[in-house]
């Protein structure tokens, strides 16, 4: 069964704009991870945030985690056409990792 649910399902923005994707989950977690999947390719790990962390940065990526609301957000700043992909959150809970259905991001040049 799925754990994380991403929102929105699809997002279309112009190059240079920021993109925000959200993930909600149901059970307590050990950590939450974000992955990117280009069309026809495998998933690539982007960033991991532990349950005792609230915010993490990596380059143009910013992830927040609110365990009281059981939600996380992924912000991509100054988006580029190459950021076009599907983005998935994955929650780890008791050695069990579950993925959401993903947000399809399209960045128009």
């Amino acid at each position, binding site marked *: 069964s799925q754990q994380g649910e991403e929102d929105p399902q699809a997002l279309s923005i112009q190059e240079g704009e920021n993109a925000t994707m959200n993930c909600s989950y149901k059970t307590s977690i050990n950590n939450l991870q974000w992955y990117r999947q280009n069309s026809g390719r495998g*998933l690539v790990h982007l960033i*991991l945030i532990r349950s005792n962390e609230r915010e993490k940065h990596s380059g143009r990526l910013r992830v927040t985690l609110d365990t009281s609301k059981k939600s996380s957000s992924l912000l991509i700043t100054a988006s580029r056409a190459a950021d076009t992909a599907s983005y998935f959150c994955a929650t780890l809970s008791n050695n069990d*990792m579950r993925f959401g259905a993903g947000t399809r991001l399209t960045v128009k040049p």
Partner: protein
Amino acid sequence: DTAVSQTPKYLVTQMGNDKSIKCEQNLGHDTMYWYKQDSKKFLKIMFSYNNKELIINETVPNRFSPKSPDKAHLNLHINSLELGDSAVYFCASSPESGNTGELFFGEGSRLTVL
């Protein structure tokens, strides 16, 4: 230099056939997984092996049988293929047992059952 490689990338076959997908990782990881991604992009874990031992076996039909000859390989054999088996199957590996860390995915094997 591919870290997690799986073959074949595409597989088209008839209902009722038996097929295998192979996966190899050269990262020295202890844990390997098989995931299934359906047409709606839902990614669901099927199996997890740690150092050749099965540690996760989700509710998957008995027609699916993973085999791990060594910790660098995890193959997936599917018997009596059905239309609903059509999906993209991803192999992944993780450096930590207990599924605590980052997953490294292969490029996927797209299975089409006619």
